[in-house]
C-alpha cells in the first residue's frame, strides 16, 4: 500500500510517496529528503537529537509517523537561519549563541539542542532562570556534557530574541 503526502519542510512544499506507513518523520527527513541535520540518537524519544518544529511546536521527529504529518509545516536545523538570519554570520540568533558560548563539543546533539532551544524560547516559560532553562532542555541529552555552555547559549539567545520582540512592539506602537 502506498501513501502520498504533502508537507512543507523549511518553507518548501514537498510531495512524498511512502511505501510503508511505519516510516517516521525523522526517516522521511534523513533518508528521503536527505536533510541529515536532524540526528537519530535513540529512535525512541529519549535523547532529543531529532528535535524539529512541527506546526510551531518542538517534537521528537522519531516519534511521529510521516503519514500523520500530511499537510504539516516542519522546520529543521537546515531551514532555521533562513527564518531569522539576524545572528552573527547570517545565522539564527540561537545558532550564533551556541557558537559564542561553546555549546557543543562533537556536535551530534547540537541540531536537536538548537531546535529545542528555539521551541523553549517561543514557549516563553523559562525566563532568565538557568534552572528552568535546564528543566526545559531536559529532553535533550549531550554525551559530551556541554550542558554549561548550552545553558548559557540559551539564556543569551533568549535575551537577544526577547529584546528583538520588544523592539518590534515599539515599532508597531510608533
Amino acid at each position: 500500500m502506498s501513501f502520498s503526502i504533502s508537507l512543507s519542510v523549511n518553507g518548501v512544499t514537498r510531495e512524498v510517496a511512502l511505501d510503508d506507513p511505519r516510516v517516521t518523520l525523522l526517516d522521511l527527513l534523513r533518508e528521503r529528503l536527505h536533510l541529515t541535520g536532524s540526528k537519530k540518537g535513540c529512535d525512541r524519544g529519549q535523547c532529543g537529537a531529532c528535535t524539529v518544529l512541527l506546526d510551531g511546536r518542538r517534537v521528537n521527529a522519531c516519534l511521529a509517523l510521516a503519514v500523520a504529518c500530511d499537510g504539516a509545516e516542519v522546520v529543521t536545523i537546515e531551514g532555521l537561519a533562513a527564518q531569522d538570519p539576524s545572528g552573527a554570520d547570517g545565522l539564527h540568533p540561537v545558532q550564533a549563541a551556541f557558537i559564542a558560548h561553546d555549546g557543543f563539543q562533537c556536535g551530534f546533539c547540537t541540531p536537536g539542542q538548537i531546535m529545542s532551544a528555539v521551541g523553549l524560547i517561543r514557549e516563553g516559560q523559562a525566563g532568565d532562570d538557568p534552572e528552568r532553562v535546564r528543566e526545559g532542555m531536559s529532553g535533550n541529552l549531550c554525551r559530551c556534557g556541554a550542558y554549561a555552555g548550552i545553558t548559557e547559549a540559551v539564556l543569551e539567545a533568549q535575551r537577544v530574541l526577547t529584546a528583538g520582540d520588544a523592539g518590534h512592539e515599539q515599532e508597531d506602537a510608533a
Partner: protein
Amino acid sequence: MRYEAPETLDAAVALLAGESGLAKVLAGGTDLLVQLRSGMIEPALVVDIKRIAETRRIQEESGGFRIGAAVSGAEMGEHAGLKAAWPGVVEAVELIGSTQVQGRATAAGNLCNASPAADSVPALVAAGATARIVGPGGSRELPVEAVAAGPGRTSLGRGEIVASLFLPARGAGQGDAYLRFIPRTEMDIAVVGAGVCLTLDGDGRCTRARVALGAVGPRVILAEAAAAALVGTTLDEAALDALAEAASAAATPIDDKRGTADFRRRVAGVLARRTAVIARDRAKGAAA
C-alpha cells in the same frame, strides 16, 4: 500495516471494529511508536484519531472540562481555566517525558497504555475523572480507574475507544495535587506516584477525599482507607500519619530495578502525606 486517519468518531469505531487482526488507536504516538518500531507489536491497522475535530478540543461542560482524547499535554498546560481548576492533574500530565514528548502525548493515551506507573492516572483518579468510551454499541461513561485492567491491558472491548476525559466541576474548598518519586529530577518513570484530591469546609475540616497510588500495583490503586483517614480531620499531624500508614498498607508493589517492594511501600506513605499537604493548602486557597 494499514494506516487510517478518519475524521469522525463513528468512522474510527467502524474501522477498528471491522478489523480482524490487531487494531491500534494512534493518539500522540509516544508509546505506540516505540512499541511499533521495536517490533513489540505488529498491528494490522493503526487508526490515527488526531484528525477527528472533537478529539482535539477542551470544552467546558457542567462547570467542568471535557478533554478530547487527542489533546496533548502541552495544550492542557496552556489552558488557563483547566490549570486553575485542576492543578494536580495538569502537573501530572506535565511530568510526562520532555517538552518534546508533551507536545504530542495525551492523557487518554497515558491511560489506555495502561502502564501501572502512568503519571496522569493517579491524579485523574483522585480528581474523580471519567472517560467517555465510544464503540459499536454506543457510548458510555466509565470512571477512569476502571479503564486499565492490568499492565498494558484495558477493559475496552473490540472497536471501543476513549473519546474524551471529563473532569468534574471543582467544588468550593477543593484542592488536588500529584507527586511522584524518581531518582532523577526529570525524564524518568515513577517509582511511586500519589494523587490526592480533598475538600475542606469553612472550618478547615476535610469533608471528602480521594487518594490514588501509582506504580505500587498492577494498576493504579484507589486507596479508600487512606482517604478515610483524612475525612473528618483538619489534616493535623495525627491524620497525616494515619494517611501515610494506610497508603503504605494499600500498596502492593513488586521488587524491580527501580526499587524494592519494601522501599516502595514506605515511599507510598511518605509521598501520599506530602501530596495531601499540597492539596490541603490548595483547598484552603480555594475556600478563601
